């Protein structure tokens, strides 16, 4: 549990550096564009280039390698599984055979190629996402989403959820520690019961907190909607940067796919 809690951190996003100062709209769009480009690419070069650039960015703002690896690893498990499945189930040109008891599995070239491409795409896309997440705090993303016309209710709920997840996390960790200190997690059956209690306790705290948050909002003139400040125009430099990223991705994609030939 503690590991999850540590991973769920925005400390890096809140640091002040060359990348965290960039306009959140530009970063959001650049990240989505990089993912789409990696997804459209049928060769591994562009996705790997995206990954290299993203890694470079993270090292530039001194994100510890350990954190990057910790965030990159989980998606790779499922990719490995999917890659293997595809290698054995798709395609026709045999690459090799594996005997599993009475079964014989045939690996195919097409499947293997597809698997490697998938791996490259995921590496590229996830790297871009990690770069975005480590340089953009949530409230900037919310402001960007509001500017991009995401409905007010959604952004308001997201803001409240974000704020109270941290508060409830602290309380949950306290209850969890108190349970463990009294052997609430000794044995599987007891663990399950303790988990259920923990879940219920968190919910109950949430209900109480909701009433109190509402009162606090009322006392400061809440009229049914949290008002948002407006995000000013994107700085010219950031526009230029976004333009450059988009152009590079387009050129890279066109070159890789042979559209220019």
């Amino acid at each position, binding site marked *: *549990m503690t590991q*999850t809690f540590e*991973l*769920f951190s*925005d400390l890096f996003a809140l640091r002040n550096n060359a990348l965290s100062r960039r306009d959140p709209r530009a970063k959001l769009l650049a990240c*989505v564009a990089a*993912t*789409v480009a990696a*997804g459209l690419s049928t060769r591994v070069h562009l*996705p790997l280039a995206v990954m290299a650039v993203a890694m470079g960015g993270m090292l530039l703002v001194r994100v510890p390698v350990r954190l990057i690896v910790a965030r*990159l690893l*989980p*998606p790779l498990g*499922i*990719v490995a599984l*999917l890659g293997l*499945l*595809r290698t054995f*189930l*798709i*395609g026709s040109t045999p690459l090799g055979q594996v005997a599993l008891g009475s079964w014989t599995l045939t690996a195919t070239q*097409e499947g293997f190629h597809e698997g490697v491409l998938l791996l490259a*795409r*995921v590496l*590229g*896309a*996830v790297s871009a996402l*990690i770069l975005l997440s480590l340089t*953009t705090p949530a409230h900037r*993303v919310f402001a960007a989403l509001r500017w991009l016309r995401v409905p007010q*209710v*959604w952004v308001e*709920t997201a803001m*409240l*959820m*974000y704020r*109270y*997840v941290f508060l*409830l996390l602290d309380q*949950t960790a306290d209850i969890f520690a108190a349970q463990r200190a009294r052997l609430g997690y000794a044995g*599987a059956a007891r*663990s*399950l*019961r303790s*988990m*259920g209690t*923990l*879940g*219920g306790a968190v*919910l*109950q705290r*949430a*209900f109480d*907190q*909701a*009433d109190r*948050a*509402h009162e606090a909002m009322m006392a400061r003139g*809440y009229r*049914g909607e949290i008002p948002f400040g407006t995000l000013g125009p994107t700085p010219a430099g950031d526009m230029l940067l976004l333009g450059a990223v988009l152009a590079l991705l387009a050129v890279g994609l066109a070159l890789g796919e042979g559209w220019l030939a």
Partner: protein
Amino acid sequence: MHISEGILPVGWAGAWLLVALPFLAWGIRQIKRRGQTEPRYRAFVALVGAAVFIISCMPIPVPTAGTCSHPCGTGLAAILIGPGPTVVVASIALLLQALFMAHGGLTTLGGNIVSMGVVGALVGFGAFRLLRGAGASVAVAAFAAGALSDWATYATTSAELALALHGGGSLWSLLGAIMMAFVPTQLPLGIFEGILSVGACRFVSSRRPELVERLLARSSG
């Protein structure tokens, strides 16, 4: 298990987003409407969302896989706030997880909203209501909601993966293989999630019975 950034081809990612949008709009409209007559409602939905988000981060030991896996929590959320708002809070939880843990992704948000939010919430809510309507106890209904919504979520995720990735091969053999790969972890996880839902519902109803009555009234609305 969320579909990670980069796994779905661009076309499929966009298609799932389009499928998710009407459900999101439905949930947003429900929150908005209810918020007008009941000013506390928005804070309530957000806090239940935050709590369920945390519950979904609790690691559950899965003996068959030798590792820890995480519950979805959408079945529980659907019991408490109804399926529409659950789709909304699930979409927010998915965005926060994508941003803070690189768990899931931005372009795969649509696919994940459909499997976890839409299918998970509808199945969980449906199971709870049907069983309660048929006279089952809260515990039985909550267990079914937790377990079935978990399994339905994984079945949908598998289907999304198989549909997108079967390429020239057989859809069914890939789907079957993905499901088989998930079963050893998912079967017990669903049961655990069911038990967790029962525990959470029991705790809330024993400490704050008036709240549960209020909740049941809410989810019928």
